[in-house]
């Protein structure tokens, strides 16, 4: 699904990620952990094609050279990023936005667009799974949404786009326990369908609901430790102090 080889990411000549490599097979979940500022969000944004970053190395996504794909092409071909802090777009009606991106995707897949009535029915169905309701349709995109509501709105977009690879950047920050369980249900279901996930998180709690296949720990732009679930309890107990000795 995803194969990253010797990826370096820099912004204005400052190297943020260096020589990073890992693979992710279809239907697997990896967790990306590491102290603040270690480059996790940068990796997520760089994969999505954020224009601030210069990349070198190679990234193959679903047998395609990701680095040559336009931002929207990556999205349409199945790469989804749930943002650490989703931006608000005031004035743009949330429902119109959801319908626009959904029908745009259908067009890309050579499907007929859904009309307003059918779309509302479909979006309401998806919204239930993430704990949103119709009261969010008439508002601006993420406009005056609480932190948790923004995350849910991102997850709703994820369900609509039905991607192949999803990067969830600190999806557990701002979400209550009930919402976390909803996320776990969705992720566990989708991985069964062969979808892959990168979960960026600081906390064991999320990983108790979603058992990752692999853990990568980042520090100062590199993966400094990889392993199985036991790494999580080590971090939970000891924090990241031990990384100093590793790196």
């Amino acid at each position, binding site marked *: 699904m995803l194969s990253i080889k010797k990826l370096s990411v820099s912004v204005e000549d400052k190297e943020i990620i260096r020589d990073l490599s890992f693979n992710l097979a279809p239907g697997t979940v990896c967790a990306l952990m590491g102290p603040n500022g270690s480059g996790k969000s940068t990796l997520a944004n760089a994969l999505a094609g954020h*224009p601030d970053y210069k990349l070198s190395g190679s990234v193959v996504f679903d047998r395609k050279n990701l680095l040559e794909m*336009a931002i929207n092409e*990556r999205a349409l071909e199945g790469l989804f990023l749930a943002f650490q802090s989703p931006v608000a777009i*005031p*004035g*743009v009606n949330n429902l119109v936005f959801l319908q626009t*991106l959904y029908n745009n995707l259908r067009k890309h897949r050579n499907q007929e667009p859904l009309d307003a009535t059918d779309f509302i029915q479909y979006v309401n169905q998806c919204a239930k799974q993430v704990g949103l309701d119709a009261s969010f349709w008439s508002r601006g*995109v993420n406009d005056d949404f609480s932190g948790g509501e923004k995350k849910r709105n991102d997850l709703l977009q994820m369900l609509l786009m039905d991607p192949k690879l999803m990067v969830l950047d600190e999806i557990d920050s701002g979400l209550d326990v009930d919402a976390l369980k909803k996320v776990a249900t969705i992720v566990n279901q989708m991985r069964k369908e062969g979808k892959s996930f990168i979960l960026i998180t600081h906390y064991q709690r999320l990983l108790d609901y979603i058992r990752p296949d692999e853990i990568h720990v980042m520090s100062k732009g590199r993966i400094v430790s990889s392993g199985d679930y036991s790494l999580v309890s080590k971090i939970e107990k000891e924090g990241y102090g031990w990384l100093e000795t590793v790196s």
Partner: protein
Amino acid sequence: MPEKSVVDQHLESEYQHGFVTHVAQDVLSKGLDESVVRWISKEKNEPEFLLKYRLNAFEYWKSLQPPNWAKLKINEIDFQAISYYAAPKGKPTYNSLSEVDPELLRTYERLGIPLHEQKKLAGVAVDAVFDSVSVATTYKETLKKHGVIFCSFSEAAVKYPELVKKYLGRVVPYRDNFFAALNSAVFSDGSFVYIPKGVRCPMELSTYFRINSMHTGQFERTLIIAEPGSYVSYLEGCTAPMRDENQLHAAVVELVAHEHATIKYATVQNWYPGDKEGKGGIYNFVTKRGRCEGRSAKITWTQVETGSAITWKYPSVILKGDDSVGEFYSVAVTKNHQQADTGSKMIHIGKNTRSMIVSKGISAGVSSNSYRGQVVVRQTAKGARNYTQCDSLLVGSNCHANTYPYIDVKQRNSQVEHEATTAKIDEQQLFYCMQRGLTEEEALPLIVNGFCREVFEKLPMEFAAEVKQLMELTLENSIG
């Protein structure tokens, strides 16, 4: 982002209404003197008072110099190089659509304004003005049943001289400014609307202005009168062919709202803006003003300005009646070398009068977009309130946005608030939309339409979709 991104390409989008209609035309030879003023008046069979009015205005205009306070970069206008009248050959007025040249009907159809009985827009009565004359007005009979008069200004001058005499120049006297004086001397055509007491006009009224001839000026004159307790919603649209020369459109629009009457006046201005290098385009110098004559009268101006090389206009409201309300909602988009200097004036005279100004300026390319507004609270206007909000959005880094608010308050017991913001188009918002599968070209108008939402909501529903599309076309290739 690559250095030359989609934004630059956006700037290259083509003007959609740039074609010329080939019909036989009567065009007055270039130049302006008293005989031209007399000729126009005679051509239109105008009553004596109107000729006098024109001549007085012309005398006054001759004593004036063109204004330059708005600091616009402007090629000097040679007023002797303009023709002051152009009309399709044939009868100056048409009694039925069957007398209208089919070529003209096709023109309006191409512009999305079908005039034919069978095809005409539902729920919207249209007056179509081609260069200097009105060629057709739809739904006249339906309106007549309600006592509503909707016709060309020329027709009104002949058929309803008392009304025209009573109101012409009441709101915008010819002494108001240089272009108002010029317009008062040589105005060609425009719309006349009269809504009788207590009548709610049963449909949207709309005028469509089209400049077709070369070297002609268009001097539109519109007058709308709403008697006590009446209601009317009016929309004007404008286009012109693509030409290398700068053409002048100098309009005067006067609105009078009596006690408890409401006038909503919307403009979608899409005159030819000139080419990428700034060559050609319409000079749009317009004086628009409404007067809330009686208690609780209400006038709302809504404008979407995307065209013209230069726009110079400040739709205003004189709030004379106690408790009267004036509103101004504006979206002005400039790109390439366009210049817009636009805003509103709210003159509070009556007690507890309220006004609201919401201005959204979007600049791209090397354009310049200014808000210029004035709020005056006279001593008599106890309890008056104004709220002004000006938001500017910059697309690219070579454009300019300015805000010039002038506030003049003579009554202590009043409240005037002004808020202004300027921001660049938010890269994070663009990225967010693109991560969801939209291209930059698709994301930009979505975000800009959101930025303008408060204003677009004020437009008649019939035109909402059209305006959204116009914005998409205008913003094509304009990210920077």
